[in-house]
């Protein structure tokens, strides 16, 4: 098994061990946050959909981790929809040990991501990760925006969210110093 593959599987198991019953959307977005905000080299290729940054390889890796006995996934239903709960399984330690050095090296980043983001529901995680994605697109081209302008850009992608709600999440991420393209009223980042 290639190094990057082992690192991904071990990371997924480490997330499930630290925070059992994580949703599948949460795992997807946590991988995005780890890679984008903490530079954890998972090698995923996230691109933007209306439901936020997504890479089908994350789902593929979750399935492989399940086959290897590292995690188990359960379908859960709620009014109007469904989701998946992911928990560690019998061979989680063995799968984590495929890349124990990697997990050890990035343990603090995994804890950091869970602490900041595991508390949110899937709709919020989709919104927060979309804000980060849009922010990074502007930051890549050295464009600077106000918080309002960034919220407006995000709303163009997710028009079903109220403007104030998006703005609240932009403010949260700005306070946490996770945004790069947003400048303050005085023009500083």
């Amino acid at each position, binding site marked *: 098994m*290639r190094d990057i593959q082992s690192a991904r599987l071990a990371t997924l198991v480490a997330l499930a061990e630290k925070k059992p019953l994580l949703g599948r959307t949460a795992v997807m977005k946590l991988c995005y946050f780890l890679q984008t905000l903490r530079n954890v080299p998972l*090698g995923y290729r996230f691109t933007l959909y209306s439901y936020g940054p997504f890479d089908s390889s994350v789902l*593929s890796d979750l399935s492989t981790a399940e086959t290897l006995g590292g995690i188990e996934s359960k379908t859960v239903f709620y009014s109007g*929809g469904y989701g998946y709960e992911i928990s560690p399984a019998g061979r989680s330690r063995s799968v984590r040990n495929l890349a124990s050095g990697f997990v050890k090296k990035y343990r603090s980043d995994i804890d950091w991501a869970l602490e900041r983001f595991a508390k949110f*529901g899937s709709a919020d995680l989709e919104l927060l990760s979309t804000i980060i994605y849009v922010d990074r697109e502007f930051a890549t081209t050295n464009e600077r925006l106000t918080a309002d302008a960034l919220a407006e*850009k995000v709303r163009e*992608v997710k028009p079903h969210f109220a403007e104030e709600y998006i703005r609240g999440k932009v403010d949260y991420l700005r306070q946490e110093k996770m945004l790069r393209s947003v400048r303050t009223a005085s023009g500083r980042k």
Partner: protein
Amino acid sequence: MGYLIADPHRRYEIRCPVHGFIQIDDWERQIIDQPSFQRLRRIRQLACTDLLYPGAMHTRFEHSLGVVHVASLLYDSIVQKSREALERQLAYTKEGLDRDRQLVRLAALLHDVGHAPFSHSAEDLFPDRGRGGKKFGHEDYSAAIIRTELRSAIEDHPLNENTGFKADDVAALIEGSAAAKRALFWRDLISGQMDADRIDYLIRDSHHIGVHYGRFDHRRLISSAIAIPDEKNQPPRLGIEEGGWHAAEALVLARYFMFTQVYFHKTRVAYDIHLRETMKTLLPGGRFPKPSGADLREFMKWDDWRVLGLIGKGKGGEHAERILKRDHYREIYYTPEACTDKDLRDLRAKKAKLGRLLVAEESAKKSWYKTGTSDIPVFSKVRSPQVQPLSKYSKVIEGMRENNQVLLYVDGASREEAERRIKETSKRR
């Protein structure tokens, strides 16, 4: 670019062995006529698969036309059945829906325009993006070609007076950028669980190869496609009506069968190795040029014809020679499709025993044609909850696992010795 067009509203029909006639308008025809699109006539859909299945000579050109056709059918079905959800949740008007239909058609037409020679075979040789272990993908090349070579053909046609598209709008939808705005909802039709790309290639590949594994009732699937209304303050999602779940199940099974019987066939995979190694020898620095500036123009000079010409002239080294002589690597060992922890340990033992006889190891996880495990949402008018995953309808799908099979290869000359060593490791157990 100057156009002398007698009738910009004229429509054209192109014969397709899968869909019958594919209709295009004058604008799309002008784009198809561009050299960067015509290049797709010189890129085979399935690389060297014809060495196993002689009929596999079809190209990315006809597939791209097929994707436009299927994407339009999907789009129309969804709009017809889900107009209310699209208007309420994404604020669409009739004009907005007409506009995005054209955008989806252009993105479908151009999604593969950035393919390297022999499609996915040598994509490992795309250059690195930089940090994070990520490489460029063919979608990055498609977006770059759209923004440069195809910009004028997209922006300057008289029909674009009605939509005002920029080339960036088309590129943004393909690459998944916020610039695509609410049209990102439609991105699942270009790149998703039941996208037009997948529907077309499964049926088209089956048709040309002469197998039935990839066939399914795609018309039923398309007519069942809907935008599933909001779940917990989330945007509408692409899914299917309950009546189409057997067709969706058949799509997933078609992917599985095509993967095991065609895309991950041991000999096809061997030829992919030889193509990749040949390209490594032929490309300056062993890497494709980057998708920008002069490098992009250099990239576009590479197509199957050029590579085959070079192979014919004796270039490309040992692996090109192997392709010419059909002297491919031989599979010596394969793990189960759903490989467990124990299977991985067995694999490591076999690899150690083979030692230097082992020349290649290929994993299904690395293949572009993955079997896929994510569920398709199914919407029911009578059940509660109304939205359930396909795996709750289908026991077959529920039991499916991601294919993480690994294949080991040796040179044909050392096959007997390799077989002896493999048997030895089995005896010890």
